[in-house]
Each structure stands twice: as structure tokens, then as C-alpha cells.
């Protein structure tokens, strides 16, 4: 009986706090994406040759983000019937956008105009009790090109 009460409490905590956290995170992602949209991040490998002298530097951004208890429970149910695991899709989406934003922020500090050769990498860092995804790390890195002042 007590187990059930604890389980339901955890589910409710996860549902309310997790939803609020996700909403807040998306809001901040969207505003910062607007602020940093003039820095273009592309994954093309060859830098533009018509821009005059540019200096380059490695920039990176990383984030570790975790899913809440309620969504993990949903994903567990989803694993029984198969199909799209929507609760993890939004987690990965948030993590990638956040990592790219942090990379762009670093590029902005270097007065860069664009980020070339952007690579994204995802790793699951915590192997939880039943091998659930739990928390993931996303790192975005690329070469920031900034104009050289003469």
C-alpha cells in the first residue's frame, strides 16, 4: 500500500514539476534563438573564400538534461506497445537546441559571424536501474569564424 502511495506521489511530482520545467525551458530556448539568429551555424565543411581574412576558433556547448519520473513511466508503457516515444523526443529536441545555443553564445563572445562544420554528439550518461535512458548529454561543436580587423 505504502509503495503505491510513494509511486503515485512520484508520478504527480514528475508530472507537475516536469511539465513546468519543460515549458520554461522551451520559452527560454525560443527567446535565445531569436537573439542569436544572426550567427549562422552550418555543417558545411568548406569555409567561404569570399569573406576576406577570417580567424577561426573551436567553440562548443554542452548540456546534460534528464527526463522526469512521469515521462519515464509513460515511456515504459510505450515500450510495451511500440511506436513513437513522444516523451523522449521532446527531451532530445530540447537538449540539442540548448547545446547549439550555448555554442552560438560562445561564438558571439568571439564576435564570430558564423559557425562552420557543426557537429552534434549525443551520449546517454547514466545507466539507471533498468537501463533506462534517464539523462542524456548533447555536445555541439564547430569552428567559429570571425572577421579579422586590420
Amino acid at each position: 500500500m505504502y509503495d503505491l502511495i510513494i509511486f503515485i506521489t512520484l508520478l504527480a511530482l514528475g508530472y507537475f514539476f516536469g511539465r513546468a520545467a519543460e515549458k520554461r525551458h522551451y520559452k527560454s530556448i525560443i527567446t535565445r534563438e531569436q537573439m542569436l539568429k544572426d550567427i549562422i551555424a552550418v555543417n558545411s565543411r568548406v569555409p567561404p573564400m569570399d569573406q576576406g581574412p577570417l580567424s577561426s576558433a573551436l567553440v562548443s556547448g554542452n548540456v546534460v538534461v534528464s527526463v522526469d519520473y512521469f515521462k519515464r513511466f509513460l515511456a515504459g508503457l510505450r515500450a510495451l506497445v511500440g511506436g513513437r516515444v513522444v516523451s523522449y523526443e521532446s527531451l532530445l529536441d530540447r537538449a540539442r537546441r540548448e547545446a547549439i545555443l550555448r555554442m552560438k553564445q560562445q561564438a558571439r563572445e568571439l564576435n564570430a559571424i558564423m559557425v562552420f562544420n557543426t557537429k552534434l554528439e549525443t551520449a546517454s550518461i547514466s545507466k539507471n536501474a533498468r537501463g533506462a535512458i534517464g539523462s542524456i548529454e548533447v555536445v555541439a561543436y564547430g569552428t567559429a569564424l570571425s572577421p579579422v580587423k586590420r
Partner: protein
Amino acid sequence: MIVTNMEIIPGQRIKQHLGLVQGSTVRAKHAGRDFMASLKNIFGGELKGYTELLQESRDEAVERMKQQASAVGANAVLNVRFSTSSITQGAAELFAYGTAVILE
């Protein structure tokens, strides 16, 4: 020492190619952070402690790669890649590798 993940540097020519250099570090999270992370697993959200830890470890891997590059006499590392793998429960390896070159 220039560290970049592009294959060429605009405006500079590669004089000599010195082969692959690498740097890696294995880090474990300490128990306090692990406890905070297990709380976050209920509420959801960013694990700031882990973000910092992994960023520090990645910087260290790059630092080790740079040391190796200067040991072979390079002045730049091109085409740098990162990779992360969890080795055992609670420990992660951060790995950085690239091509050491001498630029003109």
C-alpha cells in the same frame, strides 16, 4: 596552438602532416552530485553539475591532445572530433582526437 575542427585553415597552408594525436580522460561523478542527479530524475530538468563536470573533462582531454601535439612539434591540430562513452556505471570517458600539422 590552433585547435579547430575544419580540415583547412583559411589563408594558411599545411607544410607538414604529423598524423593523429589524441587525448582522453575518464571521470567519475562524486556521490553528492549523483544524489542530486537522482532527484532530478524525478523532477526532470538540466543536471548542471554533470554539465560542468563533462565540460571540464572535455577541456582536459583537449589539453592532453594539445600536449601530445606539441610533443611531436606541431603548431596546429585540425579536424578535431569528440566522443563520449560510458565505460562502467558512474564513469564516462571523454575522448578528443585530431590531426597534428605544421602550418606555414
